[in-house]
């Protein structure tokens, strides 16, 4: 994307007024999307963006600038702007040498989405629309969306790193509205992978549409969720976001260094039920949070965060690792070249246990069975979190009974982790988008079926 000599020159300019570290991140991204709504192909959209972000680290300060001008002159101007945080007027000339590039290229199996006909993408959406509408006459509205992106990145820094990568991501989603005597209800389902169009060899779009439609239909006869504290069984793959929110964010090293995490200084301590082993892993197959390298050029790796209930490590990006004199764990990510990297999760999941899902349900006298969680949110400093149930049922006398209307669950991360008393053997991962400090990145969240002995359910029904 940018020749090695230019990269070296720009980095040398970036540290010419002082500074321990400089980095150039170049991104060239093409994306396309298609929206089907209200019975029509409503919109196809294509986009292109490319540019470079340059940062210079001087002590505890980072200077950052970005530009869409990738000429040598444009990059030099950005380097100048980024180094404005360095105070010395002349730190002497420093020669920067980077390795020859470590290139990560796409496997030949990848079907680059831009090489697939638009007609084929639309056809997937039409099939989902038809399937959802044919499920029941009560389905009154369907919208389906498809999106793909092809992103080439280059990262080089004054530590000698020089790496490139190609990343392809494809997603599809369907959202339906069902109408009945009790008003309107909604159902949603999505599938997304770090893959090209070949993902549809394995993803059954009709199945996604059916799941979304049934989710909405069931809620037409749902009763209000209870208000109060009850045991909760989370279906495998339904609620990995709980662990992402409840403890994942608190294990990000930027929060630890700023003392804004409940997990600070607790490595080696029992912070969860011994049934809990939590991993963040950017290498899992072609999951939504997977990549060959992170956005700082560090190869992705598998990091065990909590082992048998004991906190083993945090997640690190280059900047925080440097401060703590250790190596990055491959968790430096950014939304685009216009953003600074920070500590982010990749695919975060709870490892499976030995129990069967059936027995967990049978062993729960009264409680809530959650088949699908929506989004969530956490305050890392207190550990308090909320997350929404978008498909849930009552458990009565060890059996799943009536469906419930949407409601939020609320709890405290460290407390909930200790209240896990059963973990099943039915692991699966779902895709999501994680927002932090105004930046969104794709992540995977996974878990087997687990039971939490008590969680506060934010419904409106008493008892």
């Amino acid at each position, binding site marked *: 994307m940018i020749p090695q000599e230019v990269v070296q020159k720009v980095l040398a300019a970036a540290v010419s007024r002082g500074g321990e570290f400089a980095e150039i991140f170049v991104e060239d991204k093409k994306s396309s999307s298609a929206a089907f709504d209200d019975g029509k192909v409503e919109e196809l959209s294509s986009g292109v963006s490319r540019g470079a972000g340059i940062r210079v680290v001087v002590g*505890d300060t*980072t200077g950052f600038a970005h530009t869409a001008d990738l000429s040598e002159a444009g990059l030099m101007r950005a380097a100048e702007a980024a180094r404005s945080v360095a105070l010395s007027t002349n730190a002497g000339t420093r020669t920067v040498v980077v390795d020859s590039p470590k290139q990560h290229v796409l496997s030949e199996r990848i079907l680059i989405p831009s090489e697939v006909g638009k007609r084929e993408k639309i056809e997937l959406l039409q099939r989902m629309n038809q399937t959802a509408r044919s499920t029941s006459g009560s389905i009154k509205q369907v919208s389906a969306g498809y999106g793909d992106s092809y992103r080439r990145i280059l990262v080089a820094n004054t530590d000698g790193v020089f790496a490139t990568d190609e990343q392809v991501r494809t997603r599809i989603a369907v959202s339906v509205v069902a109408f009945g005597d009790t008003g309107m209800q909604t159902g949603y389902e999505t599938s997304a992978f770090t893959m090209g169009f070949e993902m549809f060899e394995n993803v059954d779009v009709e199945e996604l549409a059916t799941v979304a439609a049934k989710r909405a239909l069931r809620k037409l006869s749902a009763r209000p969720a209870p208000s109060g504290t009850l045991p909760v069984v989370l279906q495998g793959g339904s609620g990995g976001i709980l662990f992402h929110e409840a403890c994942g964010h608190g294990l990000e090293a930027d929060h630890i260094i700023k*003392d804004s995490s409940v997990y600070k200084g607790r490595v080696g301590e029992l912070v969860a039920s011994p049934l809990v082993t939590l991993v963040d892993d950017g290498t899992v197959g072609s999951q939504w949070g997977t990549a060959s390298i992170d956005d700082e050029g560090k190869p992705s790796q598998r990091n065990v965060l909590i082992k048998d209930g004991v906190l083993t490590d945090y997640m690190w990006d280059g900047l925080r690792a440097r401060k703590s004199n250790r190596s990055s764990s491959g968790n430096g990510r950014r939304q685009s070249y216009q953003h600074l990297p920070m500590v982010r999760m990749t695919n975060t999941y709870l490892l499976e246990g030995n129990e069967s899902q059936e027995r967990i349900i049978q062993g729960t006298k009264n409680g809530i069975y959650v088949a699908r969680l929506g989004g969530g949110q956490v305050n890392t400093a207190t550990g308090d979190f909320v997350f929404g149930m978008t498909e849930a049922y009552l458990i009565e006398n060890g059996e799943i009974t009536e469906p419930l209307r949407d409601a939020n669950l609320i709890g405290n991360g460290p407390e909930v982790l200790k209240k896990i008393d059963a973990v099943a053997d039915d692991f699966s991962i779902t895709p999501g988008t994680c927002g932090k400090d105004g930046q969104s990145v794709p992540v995977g969240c996974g878990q087997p079926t687990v039971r939490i002995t008590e969680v506060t359910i934010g419904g409106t029904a008493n008892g």
Partner: protein
Amino acid sequence: MDDLEIIGEKIVNQARPGEEIEAFVAWEEETSIRVYNGEIENLSQAQSSGVGIRIVNNHRQGFAWAGTLDISAIEFALSEARDNASFATEDEYLGLGLPDNVAPKDLDLWRNELSSHSTEEKVSLALELESAVRNSDKRIKSVESSNYGDVSSIATVLTTTGMKASYRQTFSFITAHAIAAEGDETQTGGGYSVGRTLTELDMSKAASDATRRATRLLGAHKPASSRMTVLFDPQVTTTLLAIISGTLSGEAVIKGRSLFAGRLNEEVASSIVSLVDDPTNPSAFGASAYDAEGYASRSNSLIHEGVLQGFLYDTYSARRAGVSTTASAVRGGFSSTPGVGARALLLNPGTKSQQELIESIENGVLVQNISGVHSGVNPISGDFSVGAEGLLIKAGRLGAPIKEFTIASSLQRMLQEVVAIGNDIEWIPSVAAGVSIVVDGISVSGV
């Protein structure tokens, strides 16, 4: 602005016979500074620009965008938009806007003065805020981040159908996030101030809000579950109004996704509720002389004394509904097509201060913060359940802090049960102004 118009003109001039083209050209310059422990943590200054191109041909619409004003990228976007249009379904109501006779208001939303301030001055504001928060109360353990930011943005919309509008604005803001601690307990709270330029910022308000919001939660417990009267802080009301505005979108109505569809002229809220969306009000941070399709902004009454007056429309949804546009087209930037949205909602204020509202409540909760809004509020079914923190209200006085509870009701019911609105209108950088409101019959779930 002239430069953007020239680029826009070059794009629309390439229309082929039968084609309608819209060019949306945007430019932005921003400064972002974060300080921590008396040092700059990061400082970023950058300009960015881009173009979004919408083409309608035979009532089929296509869109493409480029995150640069580079000629080759614009050419790519133009040909992609054209190609994309050929795959869309024909829809007789699709077409770009046509000029109407509403004159734009002259709004003063841009301050030349902003660019006269040095980076050092901006850094010192963030540092000053950090030390103001840290020194305000000995229970403030740290300031997780203290920020200064500003944005200057210019946009032009030009179409082959005769729409032509350029608008620009500046914003400047400071924010701080405080961590308070007592014993082994920690609580957090944020404060901010926003203006059109940095001389309009209120440092002491930003600092004292962050401190008060963090420290007053210390010692918080989970409350008992029951049904209660809830007083929402102005910032929380802003969030609620933003959600409700989605149900008042004409687009949601025609697509069967609005819980207010078919309820025009009916009583949908308590009689003290009057709601307007007026982007011509320069106090609103969502103010703009034009909407995102180039129509002059206008004031729209949505609910008057509890009765539903109308919905918000852009060109497409208005044509389909057989009404005139309300000039309510909004867009997230050059990379998206316009959609319908509110920009400057204002709930007609009452006469009481928040303190007087507290005094009128026998048994209730003051909610200062809600969380999980995206997962817990379903704007289609109206189901409402969010996480909350705040203070108990007993016999007209603020009591113990409470946290880790949820509040639940439905949007429909909450609108009907608004029993009081404060006089404390607060313009917040959002689509709605904040104001204290009191709502009855909310389920509080805790222990």
